[in-house]
């Protein structure tokens, strides 16, 4: 059997890889996010660590009083973690917006956990209580109806927001 050089072996494996797993271009952002989630990798933490490495490289340019290459500057801008101090108004606004969005997202999750998806049924034990007038019952029924509507409205908003 012909003994292959390491380069030939690599090329053959790469060819098999492309035929079996596709070309790298096929790995889209959505698929990437899902894949990283599945291995338990926090994408923000990943980006922050990559940022730190690029930042360390950028320091060499700053020390030498050289301009940063355009791509390195863009990479630092893109990967700059939210925890880093804002450098200007726009960055402050971006960080504030993201923080608020996260809080809203968390509160939505909390609300959806508190408000069940199934239709609501109230325990109407008051109906059998003695000594209640018809007017009392009507008042309690009205409160119950209002509550139902309020919760349905909240659920509706929540669904639209998702």
């Amino acid at each position, binding site marked *: 059997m012909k003994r292959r050089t390491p380069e030939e072996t690599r090329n053959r494996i790469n060819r098999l890889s492309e035929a*079996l797993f596709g070309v790298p*271009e096929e790995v889209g952002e959505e698929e990437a996010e899902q894949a990283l989630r599945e291995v338990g990798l926090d994408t923000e933490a990943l980006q922050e660590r990559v940022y730190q490495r690029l930042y360390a490289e950028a320091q060499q340019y700053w020390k030498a009083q050289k301009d940063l290459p355009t*791509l390195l500057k863009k990479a630092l801008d893109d990967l700059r973690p939210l925890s880093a101090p804002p450098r200007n108004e726009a960055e402050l606004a971006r960080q504030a917006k993201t923080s608020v969005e996260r809080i809203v997202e968390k509160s939505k999750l909390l609300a959806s956990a508190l408000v069940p998806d199934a239709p609501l049924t109230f325990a109407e034990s008051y109906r059998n209580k003695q000594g209640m007038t018809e007017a009392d019952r009507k008042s309690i029924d009205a409160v119950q109806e209002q509550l139902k509507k309020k919760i349905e409205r909240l659920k509706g908003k929540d669904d639209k927001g998702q």
Partner: protein
Amino acid sequence: MSEHGQLPDFKSLSKRLMAYGLVVFAEFSLGGEDAVVPGTGLSAEDFVAKVLLEYATGKIKHQKSRGSLMTVLSTAMRNDIIDALRKKSHKLEETRATITVDEDSEGEDHEKPALDQFPQSLAPDPSSVVDEDEYRARVRAVVDNEPPLKDLVEAVLDLELYKPEDIADALGTSAADIQNRKKKLRRRLCQSELVHSTEEEGRTL
């Protein structure tokens, strides 16, 4: 600059490169986010950061003729990973001493070799990691009981079909379906390596 003359989105690029890096790691039996190339301590993240840094500082140039930016950076990263695996296997071959214990020699006060001098049975043999036959065997093992994925693997490994159209013709399906199967296979590969690495951790604890 990207293929369209615009600056790329590094957030998206880092995620996609990392996901692809995990696929390459899994192809060579390295599973999970904490996996490293044996003996080097280099993780998929290290390789991602390296190519991004080389691109950002101009050491890797993106030329349209070589494909999209993702293709150029992923190819560079894949080559780096394979080089690291291969260098490690060479190093091991060069430094691997022959361990012999002469059980018959009597009266001599010789020391037995320490346990860690013997190769670990659970660790993958680095010299076989970048070997085509081993590669084929690993891929087959991933799709043992999944007919649609198994069909794809057999079409590539046994019938030597490489283009999606050719594979689709042989399997009586569409090229789009083949692309979907490839996507599933990428996922299955990473999942199987993740399970494998978790089992290995459990055994070593």
